[in-house]
């Protein structure tokens, strides 16, 4: 093993985008990182659409804006169920909801993050004050802890998580740029298979250990891709 940055970029985890999306089958539950398209794994989403999978359950904080990133899965009718905190900027969601084509469970954004974190951290659920007294609490148990009431929210996991990082080394260690950390960080922990799209695949040692946000042990497959208009 070498720790120099001029080592050749080869990795048993590095696969083509087509090979990566072969792990996603119709009917699966898929998590996709990103916020309004920022931090979506854009090339993987594109390939998923091209592959023709349907009836997916998608867990994502939002459905982006028309034509950008994860929005395409909605627009191409690939989803049967959606867990999200915000769908208002992608009109296709309301259209498909009203047509009875897409089931949507709206979840407060912070609760969604913690449910996924719990799913990835081996916890049995989340106790949160968020959502008490609102439709979010309907049908869910409450728990009293030291005189305060909390809502019990269940963990979320997926068959496959699709995440995105700017620099990913050959072992799958991820460095995120700007605001692209968002849901990618928790989603990398909460799926049976984790596919990470890199703007740049870099040699071992190119990311100092202190700067690794998602450790490579969580990542099963790496693909080269990147955001349109990125550098």
């Amino acid at each position, binding site marked *: 093993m070498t720790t120099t940055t001029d080592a050749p970029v080869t990795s048993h985890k590095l696969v083509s985008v087509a090979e990566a999306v072969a792990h996603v089958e119709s009917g699966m539950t898929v998590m996709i990182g990103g*916020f*309004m*398209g*920022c*931090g979506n794994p854009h090339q993987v989403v594109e390939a998923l659409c091209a592959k023709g999978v349907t009836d997916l359950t998608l867990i994502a*904080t*939002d459905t*982006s*804006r028309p034509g950008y990133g994860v929005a395409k899965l909605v627009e191409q009718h690939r989803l049967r169920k959606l867990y*999200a*905190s*915000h*769908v*208002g*900027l992608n009109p296709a969601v*309301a259209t498909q*909801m009203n047509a009875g084509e897409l089931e*949507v469970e*709206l979840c*407060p*954004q*912070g*609760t969604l*993050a*913690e449910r*996924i*974190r719990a799913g990835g951290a081996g916890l049995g659920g989340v106790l*949160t*004050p*968020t*959502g*008490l*007294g*609102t*439709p*979010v609490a309907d049908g869910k148990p409450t728990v009293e802890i030291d005189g305060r009431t909390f809502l019990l929210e269940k963990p979320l996991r997926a068959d496959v998580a699709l995440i995105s990082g*700017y620099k990913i080394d050959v072992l799958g260690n991820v460095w*995120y*740029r*700007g*605001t*692209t*950390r*968002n*849901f*990618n*960080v*928790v989603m990398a922990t909460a799926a049976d298979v984790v596919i990470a799209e890199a703007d740049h695949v870099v040699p071992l040692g190119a990311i100092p250990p202190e700067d690794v*946000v998602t450790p490579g042990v969580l990542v099963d497959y790496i693909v080269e891709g990147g*955001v*349109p*208009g*990125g550098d």
Partner: protein
Amino acid sequence: MATDRAPVLDKASLDKGTIREIIARRVARELKDGDFVNLGIGLPTMIPDYLPDGVRVVLEAENGIVLAGGCGAGEESPYVVNAGGQPASCQVGGAFIDSATSFGLIRGGHMDATVLGALQVDQAGNLANWIIPGKMVPGMGGAMDLVVGAKHVIVAMEHTQKGAPKILPACTLPLTAVACVDLIVTEMGVIEVTPHGLVLTEINPVFTVDEVCAATAAELTVAEPLGSML
């Protein structure tokens, strides 16, 4: 530098832009130097323009920026957006964080204030601002966490919806959270939510107390003395 007082106008000159400015200016005076603040999209994003001299706040974008800033033309990056999905920046001294950390800051009592709009507010401080069943179902985004977690929750909104009161005895729309609102700032005045109901503490002098009460469906107690919000 902007002065922290809005000019006194007559009712006829209260167009949409002026109304928004009056509200933003008044909310700006609620924020203290160093406060860690989350501003909702729309009107609340105008507030930093009207902060009094010497007051600087640390803005959060809940998708992952502490000390968020704007973005000049030509500086847009597909890697940095704010909570509205618009191009943004992180100022020197700030941090990029993930969503679980961000909402930990929000829910964990680390945030001094949040300012956001409302569809309805009621006299118990209940807030409805995320759904009109059958009409508008955008989702709550981060609003439910923000109003539960921030130490001070300020609603900044127009007093009525085209004349129909938005400040009610009890919200009729599904709630965002229960008893969460501390202060309501509109173009007509400033209303505190207290254990004894709503108290009009300041008024826009172009309106009379009777006019404010008529535009408010909830019962208002009028503070004595009643200040000017301008």
